[in-house]
């Protein structure tokens, strides 16, 4: 084997065109460390094949018209133009954003409250609660969607029964835009509130108690130390949860697909961006178009993450 590692390990941080001596030294160094390079190489090789190349290839595909079987034909910006003018695409974008808002805000709020409760010094059975709250997170989404489907069922679901107890008429949840979006959001909240609570709890526990004691000595009230100590110290973790829930929220697929099918339900309220992408690419076989939608989604996620970042970073209480 004549050192294939030299070919794909970009180690020359500074190009040294003339000093052939130091170049020799570098390659001798690389040769000396060949085992280390070999040990880390699987990740880079796989990422090149299944991560990097698909991204470049999807750029190419997005300018093509292709059904996955026949000839590929170049069609310029048509895919993007179609995407930007397709009301269904914008519908999917709107649905995704709405579901994200309906789910993320209550979810993180609940998580924060649960974390505070669990963090109280006199809580008993803390481990037990933690396991119970975390359990939804390891359950498969397909199973969750099937179970919640019976809760939000149009006619005789559990929720409609509860409504009837209050003398209210039953609602066809899964046929209404807001109903399906509510159902999806409830599933997201149920599955992720406990997970985020566990993370917040760890964050709370990592704040040194000395800070609170010092504040108490200085005469700070509980509310003051909450806003001046807890929140600033928790901010990086809140940012982490906001970013992960944004990325997760933009990729919601399984819940609507299992609950109401590939079209996002009768009302189309469950058509999220990834469901739209899946339908166009893998049900209708518009592969080129699917690639373009992937890029649209990427831009959206990037923009959205930046906005989030700014929002969470940008309301400093005092730092």
């Amino acid at each position: 084997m004549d050192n294939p590692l030299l070919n794909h390990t970009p180690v020359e941080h500074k190009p040294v065109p003339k000093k052939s001596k130091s170049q020799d030294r570098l390659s001798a160094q690389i040769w000396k460390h060949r085992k280390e390079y070999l040990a880390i190489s699987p990740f880079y090789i796989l990422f090149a094949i299944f991560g990097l190349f698909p991204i470049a290839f999807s750029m190419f595909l997005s300018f093509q018209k292709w059904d996955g079987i026949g000839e590929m034909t170049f069609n310029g910006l048509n895919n993007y133009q179609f995407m930007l003018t397709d009301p269904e695409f914008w519908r999917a974008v709107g649905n995704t954003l709405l579901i994200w808002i309906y789910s993320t805000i209550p979810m993180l709020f609940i998580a924060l409250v649960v974390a505070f409760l669990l963090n109280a010094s006199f809580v008993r059975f803390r481990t037990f609660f933690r396991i119970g709250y975390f359990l939804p997170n390891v359950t498969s989404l397909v199973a969750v969607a099937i179970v919640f489907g019976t809760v939000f069922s149009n006619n005789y679901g559990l929720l409609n029964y509860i409504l009837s107890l209050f003398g209210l008429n039953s609602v066809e949840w899964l046929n209404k835009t807001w109903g399906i979006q509510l159902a999806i959001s409830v599933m997201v909240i149920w599955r992720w509130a406990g997970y985020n609570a566990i993370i917040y709890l760890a964050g709370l526990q990592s704040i040194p108690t000395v800070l609170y004691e010092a504040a108490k000595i200085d005469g700070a009230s509980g509310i003051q130390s909450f806003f001046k100590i807890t929140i600033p110290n928790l901010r990086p973790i809140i940012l982490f949860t906001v970013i992960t829930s944004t990325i997760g929220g933009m990729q919601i697929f399984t819940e609507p697909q299992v609950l109401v099918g590939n079209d996002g339900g009768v009302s189309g309220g469950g058509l999220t961006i990834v469901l739209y992408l899946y339908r166009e690419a893998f049900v209708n076989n518009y592969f080129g178009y699917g690639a373009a939608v992937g890029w649209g989604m990427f831009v959206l996620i990037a923009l959205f993450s930046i906005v989030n970042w700014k929002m969470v970073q940008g309301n400093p209480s005092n730092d």
Partner: protein
Amino acid sequence: MFKWKSILLHLGLIAGLLLSIFPFYWLLVMATRTTSDIYSFPPKLWFGPHLLDNVSRVLSSIDFFGAFWNTLFVAAACTLLVLFFDSLAGFTFAKFQFPGKKWLFVLLLATMMAPAQLSLVPSFVIMAEFGWVGSYKALIIPGMVNAFGIFWIRQYAQESVPSELLDAGKIDGCGFFRLYWNISLPILRPALSFLAAFTFIGVWNDYLWPLIILNDESKFTLQVALSSLNGIYTTDYSMVIAGTLLAVIPLIVMFLFISKQFISDIAAGAIKS
């Protein structure tokens, strides 16, 4: 005063816990009922006698055990490969110096930002080129090493594998691989067990990618089989529910065994990153 506060707090926590647990209870109840029971008014909130009946209808409608073994195979294969490749790379990053190391590690972290959905279509096309559509290779090979696991192992190895021990090993004539396999791997065990559980749960529950890749019913993983069961037998809902129960149980049982450590590791992982 203090006591009241405590009672109130525990009541709040228990209420939350009930909401968290209720869908599991509801799943269990429905699996023991008939379809007309499930949709009856008022709903039956206690167990019925039809569990075995429902389960036997699941087993005659789909090859449940086939799907179970398929999922187990894919998840186990992925997990073992991830453990090996991630720990090897993580160990190397933690304990060795080599030119370009910092740069390579930054690159590794940067890849975590690349959104998977962007490459859904081209990845499928690549799999088609390789002739891997319908094959488990498409599920296992792209997932057999990942940036998160390497990062996780590196953090752990930095703190817990003593450099003196490696030096002693070198003096005793251990090569690179033996330093990794015989000396470091046993020390890395706690970090590995979290990575194993994390990977296994993720692969077990994966849905979108297997849905796209697997086209032959006999190769379906549990999630895909469950979803197709749900799509086809819309009238025999108690059977679908029993299938859901069967698909959910193995992972929950596994989770309950490892939960305490797993949850702390999840939190630690989030705080570190």
